[in-house]
């Protein structure tokens, strides 16, 4: 072979190799495919909208008018077609979000995003939301076919759009980026996502966290840090009065019950004072908490209603703002719905067809979490001779094992064995075997309750609809055009019969610790509907339920497990609503209120501490001066909120965080601010405060100032460190919005808590709504985000600025298409 030939041969090999390598490099191939002229992402972000579609599954024509904010006003002849159209619009605007959310519930996220989602999938499959969704779906299908038909119609609507999008190569961007296509939607997917929402609002791990303290320090310390009846909340309960319901009250003196040690053997069947048991318990509890991950720290909400007697316009008014994840796309999707028996406006969750928070032509409703216990944790006794058996009610039972295969993108599938006892899935085997029992693991019927809520025409209809509401237990606030206001806390609240030390027996709700699982500490019934906490038209003219204590001491059942939020928001809204007359503007101001009640309560003690332990440091003196002259408003342009916030962080860090770490129980719950305040007033020399509250409080301010100076220099403006960030649910920064400087903080009505020592605000008012119940209800609302998940759509984040500046949109509850004067486009869906 001559040189020329060899050279040609080498060139041939190299060029062929280069062609092969470049064309088959995954990153290159993906990039060119995504950005190339054919099959690129351009069709995904420019979906075609036809003025009419002929679709199978419809019975009659449906008209959809989409307004200038991207809100669909849907006009159908019956509910089935209405639900079909909601499914069509949900998937048109939020298909990937819906798919991601159902995957999160079903434990199938790793299938599309890989190992990073594996731990979430393992928890979800262990808890078994998908298994519970199937149980619920089968029950509804058999017993409530008329509701099943609606959920099926919704799924048909979703699937109609999926077909169209696939045929036109218009699946949303994230499907292209992750290179997969959606499975068809089924009613079980809607139910599974509802279960996920329920789980995320009721997965309180307090019994595990409190048990850590009880096991390490004894029952008395646990009771001291976590009193059953939180300090300073007795006058601001959700249900006014002493807690009795229609004349029914608890049979045993509640003060006696509150004085008992509920971690004792008689209450739990466990002996925390036995060092051997306590050691094993700490190992198991830490492992269980690590497995389950974080509980709903920043989840909360506000709602309140004002009676006509208190309202400056003479109409009942309702306000609601659920504090949930401030994600992009938003959890919420706004709709205006009309059929032969539904006329309602409000927000839906993409993936669930009904309006969750909204109003119709007669009533308005809003939701907040009740915080009451619907989950218990049981210590199982395992057969030493057979580890697959547990002891219950006098005999050994087989542990049921379910094999789950989790597909993982880019890796081998993972096999998971879920072990179940009569209580539920086993969440740890280290030290002790502990299982979790949650109301939502069984058949629950909130999917049908919420359909009936949309149709309710009066208080009676509303309460009847909520007979089916099981989980998550919620404070349903109500107002109507007849001038009624009400609140009810529907849900399946499990009761256990407990024999007290004085030999009396009572029913208690929940527990404060893990329980003996061998029998005797079991759920025996649920609170009957008639005795659920509720109040109608209270004399004072208002009701408010910002996650504070539900009921006072004389409630017919002893509420042992209630994981109330700080009462700071309740104190503040009660203070606002105690005015003679409340206007619409007052309602709006209430939702944007940033008065820091905890700071107001603590400040005399902090000032006293600094007087007792003065500092010559000019920076510390500046901090004291800022606090002394502060109006307690957490405004982003002030400096005092920064000092308060980091004083609080510093104080907790020097006390409870430090002690828990020293004791090896880092997962223990930090006590509520008001319980800390009560302890400071009662026991200023407590070891929790290093023997001297005032000295520790003063040093905390010095430490806070040092931290602030290091982090921020001389400019201590709150908005510099307190920023809200709307993270895309994929976690991709390029699709997220913000950060933006924000008002508010922990426990302000305009909730904007941030992690200790800084970090973005990621939870807060996810939907602000106010409704004036005039003859034709007038609604005002805003959520941070926009109607579309398409990142280049005009409606991707168009509500964010209004939300940041506390502006509201007038909600156009349009009884007929002629009431819409800002239509962007119209879609007609016709039956095939």
């Amino acid at each position, binding site marked *: 072979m001559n040189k020329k*030939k060899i050279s040609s041969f080498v060139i041939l090999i190299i060029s062929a190799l280069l*062609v092969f390598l470049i064309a088959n490099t995954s990153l*290159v*191939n993906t*990039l*060119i495919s995504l950005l190339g002229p*054919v099959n690129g992402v351009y069709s995904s972000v420019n979906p075609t909208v036809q003025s009419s579609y002929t679709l199978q599954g419809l019975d009659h024509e449906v008209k959809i008018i989409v307004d200038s904010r991207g809100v669909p006003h849907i006009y159908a002849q019956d509910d089935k077609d209405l639900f079909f159209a909601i499914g069509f619009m949900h998937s048109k605007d939020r298909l990937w979000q819906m798919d991601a959310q159902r995957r999160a519930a079903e434990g199938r996220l790793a299938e599309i995003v890989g190992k990073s989602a594996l731990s979430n999938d393992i928890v979800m499959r262990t808890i078994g939301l998908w298994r519970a969704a199937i149980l619920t779906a089968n029950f509804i299908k058999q017993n409530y076919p008329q509701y099943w038909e609606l959920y099926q119609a919704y799924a048909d609507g979703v699937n109609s759009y999926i077909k169209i999008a696939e045929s036109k190569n218009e699946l949303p961007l994230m499907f292209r980026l992750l290179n997969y296509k959606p499975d068809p939607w089924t009613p079980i997917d809607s139910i599974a996502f509802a279960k996920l929402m329920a789980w995320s609002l009721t997965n309180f791990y307090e019994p595990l966290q409190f048990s850590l303290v009880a096991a390490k320090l004894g029952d008395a310390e646990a009771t001291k840090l976590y009193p059953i009846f939180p300090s300073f909340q007795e006058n601001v309960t959700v249900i006014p009065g002493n807690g009795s319901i229609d004349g029914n009250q608890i049979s045993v003196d509640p003060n006696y019950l509150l004085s008992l040690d509920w971690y004792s053997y008689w209450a739990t069947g466990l002996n925390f004072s036995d060092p051997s048991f306590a050691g094993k318990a700490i190992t198991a509890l830490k492992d269980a908490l690590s497995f389950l991950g974080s509980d709903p720290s920043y989840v909360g909400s506000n709602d309140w209603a004002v009676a006509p007697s208190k309202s400056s316009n003479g109409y009942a008014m309702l306000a609601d703002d659920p504090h949930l994840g401030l994600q992009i796309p938003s959890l919420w999707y706004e709709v205006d719905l009309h059929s032969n028996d539904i006329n309602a406006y409000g927000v839906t969750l993409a993936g669930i067809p009904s309006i969750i928070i909204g109003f119709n032509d007669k009533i308005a409703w809003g939701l907040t979490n009740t915080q009451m216990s619907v989950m218990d944790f049981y210590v199982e006794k395992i057969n030493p001779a057979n580890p697959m058996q547990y002891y219950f009610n006098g005999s050994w039972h087989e542990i049921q094992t379910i094999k789950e295969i989790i597909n993982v993108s880019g890796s081998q599938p993972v096999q998971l064995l879920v072990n179940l006892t009569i209580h539920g899935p086993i969440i740890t085997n280290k030290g002790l075997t502990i299982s979790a029992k949650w109301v939502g693991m069984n058949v629950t019927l909130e999917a049908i309750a919420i359909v009936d809520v949309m149709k309710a025409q009066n208080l009676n209809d509303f309460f009847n609809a909520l007979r089916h509401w099981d989980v998550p237990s919620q404070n349903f606030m109500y107002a109507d055009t007849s001038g009624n206001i009400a609140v009810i806390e529907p849900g399946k609240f499990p009761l256990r019969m407990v024999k007290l030390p004085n030999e009396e027996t009572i029913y208690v709700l929940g527990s404060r610790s893990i329980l003996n699982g061998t029998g005797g500490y079991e759920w025996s019934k649920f609170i009957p509907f008639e005795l659920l906490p509720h109040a109608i038209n209270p004399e004072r003219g208002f009701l408010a339920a910002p996650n504070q204590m539900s009921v006072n001491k004389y409630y017919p059942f002893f509420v042992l497990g209630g994981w109330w939020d700080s009462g700071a928001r309740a104190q503040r809204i009660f203070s606002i609503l105690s005015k003679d007359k409340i206007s619409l503007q007052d309602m709006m101001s209430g939702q944007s209120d940033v008065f820091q009640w905890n700071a107001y309560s603590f400040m005399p003690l902090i000032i006293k501490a600094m007087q007792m332990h003065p500092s010559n440091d000019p920076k510390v003196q500046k901090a004291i001066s800022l606090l002394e002259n502060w109006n307690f408003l957490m405004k982003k342009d002030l400096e005092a909120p920064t000092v308060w916030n980091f004083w609080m962080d510093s104080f907790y860090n020097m006390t409870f965080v430090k002690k828990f770490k020293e004791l090896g129980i880092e997962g223990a719950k930090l006590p509520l601010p008001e319980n800390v305040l009560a302890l400071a007033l009662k026991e200023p020399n407590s070891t929790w405060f290093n023997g001297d509250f005032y000295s520790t409080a003063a040093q905390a301010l010095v430490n806070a100032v040092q931290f602030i100076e290091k982090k921020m220099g001389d400019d201590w403006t709150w908005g510099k460190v307190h920023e809200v960030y709307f993270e895309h649910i994929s976690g991709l920064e390029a699709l997220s919005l913000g950060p933006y400087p924000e008002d508010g903080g922990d426990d302000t009505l305009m909730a904007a808590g941030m992690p200790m020592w800084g970090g973005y605000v990621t939870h807060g008012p996810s939907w602000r709504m106010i409704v004036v119940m005039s003859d034709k209800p007038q609604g005002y609302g805003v959520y941070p985000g926009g109607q579309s998940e398409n*990142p*280049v759509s005009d409606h991707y984040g168009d509500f964010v600025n209004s939300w940041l500046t506390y502006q509201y949109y007038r909600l156009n509850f349009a009884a007929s298409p002629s009431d819409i004067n800002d239509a962007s486009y119209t879609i007609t869906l016709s039956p095939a």
Partner: protein
Amino acid sequence: MRHNFLLVTFLVFLLDYILTFVLADWRIVILAGAIGGLLYTSKLKSFAAGFTGTLIAWIALMVPILVQKNNLAITSILASIVGFPQALLLALVFIIPSLVGAFACLATTTLRQLISQ
């Protein structure tokens, strides 16, 4: 020769443009380049014709897309996701297929030379 260069460039461009719609895969630039390369005897010019023909085809295909509403914006988002400046990402989108087309053209030209030798 100049005539040949223009002819091959045009052929590659035409094949790229048409086959892109027919086969809906960017890797058809290999096929177009390879066919173009069969008509050539000069390696360097073959490479240049393959590169130029593919580049012109991609410009013809991509520019009408990128000038439409939203499309440039989405390239900016994708650039952020992969961590490249938008201009670099767009340049790569034009240059990579052009290089692949050029090498395919060069490969077949070389193969033809080898066979004829």
